[in-house]
């Protein structure tokens, strides 16, 4: 049951047909693309994969495709949080049944839960499955609801399968509040930043990141991680500044802009489900000009 998570782990978007239905063959191509381009793990369906705009049945279909296509080459984690805990539980059980390697859960949506409520929620999910469990900290999106160091410490003591945190605070103090407690209690605990902010997090003991830009620039992702691990800080800074410009580009209307950029890389994945907009032709052209300026069009793979 033990897996090691490190490097830039790829979290594919969800390809859709023009009628907004799931495009599973394209999704399988995408998972395979990521693994062939060095992804050390696959994680699906994060928010960028429009998880909250999919039904539970669709999420199960995608999870099965991810596990099947990965075929044991790299670990697959499944994001199981849904609005209703009943759905979350169903998705967690399903992930275990189909042979996923870990589940990922965020603090419950909407309710502004107290630390005690978050604790009970994670313990319920973590004791229900035999899989490793990762938690997801996103105070920026969830009005300050977050995993404190104290809460993480209690969860590590309670759950032997609590192996890591996706931290999307992007803040030194918040990252350290969790990491210094977690790494002390469980040295193998994986602190994974939510976007490729590897330069500020790897020196703090971070294991890697989930990827925002990986479907556009897998080579740059791997270059940044390698430079950070080699403590080659000048090279790491150059790569980080570049990948952060990409994040700025995609953060606006995320993940619509990302899907728009993929068209320009010869890897179209269709529209984005409402209420998220779909990138217009003008937006795609703008993204193309930026990718060109950053050298992405020449330094990164085109097509699948």
């Amino acid at each position, binding site marked *: 049951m033990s897996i090691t998570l490190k490097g830039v782990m790829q979290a594919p978007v969800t390809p859709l047909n023009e009628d907004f239905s799931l495009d599973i063959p394209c999704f399988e191509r995408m998972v395979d693309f990521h693994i062939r381009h060095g992804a050390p793990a696959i994680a699906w369906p994060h928010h960028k994969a429009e998880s909250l705009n999919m039904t539970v049945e669709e999420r199960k279909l995608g999870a099965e495709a991810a596990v099947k296509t990965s075929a044991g080459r790299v670990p697959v984690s499944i994001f199981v949080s849904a609005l209703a805990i009943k759905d979350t539980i169903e998705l967690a059980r399903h992930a275990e049944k189909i042979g996923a390697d870990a589940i990922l859960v965020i603090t419950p949506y909407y309710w502004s839960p107290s630390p005690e409520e978050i604790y009970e929620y994670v313990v319920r999910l973590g004791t229900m499955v035999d899989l490793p469990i990762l938690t997801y900290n996103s105070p920026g999106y969830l009005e300050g609801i977050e995993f404190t160091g104290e809460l993480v410490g209690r969860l590590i003591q309670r759950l032997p399968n609590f192996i890591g945190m996706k931290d999307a605070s992007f803040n030194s103090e*918040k990252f350290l509040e969790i990491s210094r407690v977690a790494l002390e209690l469980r040295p193998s605990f994986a602190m994974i930043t939510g976007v490729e902010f590897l330069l500020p997090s790897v020196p703090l003991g971070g294991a890697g990141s989930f990827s925002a830009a990986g479907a556009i620039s897998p080579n740059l992702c791997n270059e940044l991680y390698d430079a950070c691990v080699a403590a080659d800080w000048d090279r790491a800074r150059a790569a980080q500044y570049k990948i952060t410009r990409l994040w700025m580009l995609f953060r606006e209307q995320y993940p619509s802009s990302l899907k728009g950029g993929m068209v320009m890389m010869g890897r179209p994945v269709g529209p984005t489900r409402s209420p998220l907009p779909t990138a217009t032709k003008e937006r795609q052209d703008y993204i193309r000009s930026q990718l060109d300026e950053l050298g992405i069009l020449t330094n990164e793979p085109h097509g699948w």
Partner: protein
Amino acid sequence: MSDLQLGLVHTPLTPFTGDIAIDFEQYGRIINFHLKNGAEALALPMHVAESVSLSDAERRKLLEFALEQVEGRVPVIAHITQSGTSIACALAQHAEQAGAAAIICTTPYYWKPQPGMMLQHFTEIGATVKIPYFLYNAPSEMGGTRVTIELVLDLIKRLDNFAGLVDISLDWQFLIDVVSNARRAKPNFQLLSGLEFLISAGAIGAKGAFAPHATIAPRLVKRLYDLCSAERYKDARPTQHEFASLYQAVKKRGVSGMKAAARSLGRDCGDPRPPILPLMESAQRALAEELLRIPSVAEEGRGW
């Protein structure tokens, strides 16, 4: 304009006597303590030094006293933030005439200024002096009002003496934006961490730091600063963790905690000025005990 490059900047507390006047005799001791303990520059009176509770005349007198005491051994940076632009400009002009090496300013108190107001405010203040001008980005101290990258880039265009930014947001995205964009517009633009969270800031490319906790633990701060300046981030991690413990212990008790912590190490700076209340004796004892559990703090010297 001068080529002032800031390194490790200490931010002395303001001591008050029993009848809440500034205790200048003690202030002289405080300044000498910082100069003996690693300060490469002083910034005063910052918020931690209760600048907001000082009258305009007191701020001027405090600065003049500090400059006399320092006798040019290190640069002194005057903190001149005010709500009203003209009042801040007058403080800035006084600082320049008195011999301050630079001024530092954060967003105006209370007004929740829109971007256009901020640009106008900061431009007027910067244009009123020739000495280097630093912005202080402190959303946690300023009700969420933050300096944006757009504001920084606009001010670089408008003001030759706009020398750099001191940040306590600890926000990775913002720090990367400043280093990668502002330095493209102005190659010698300085980014300093405004708190001693130095690993991530250093890796991102910040040079120099404000060290409000040097009043309590100057050796710890200096060791952390030296390791990070040498980009030895992994070696710096245990010290960074100790700093985080110190930071959290003081932070939850505010300025009163800072003064109580200093007192517990034999460096009495008096009580805070009203409306801030000093810690109760039991809370002072609890804080002192918490600090002594941090090995590097326990090993610090006592007294002046």
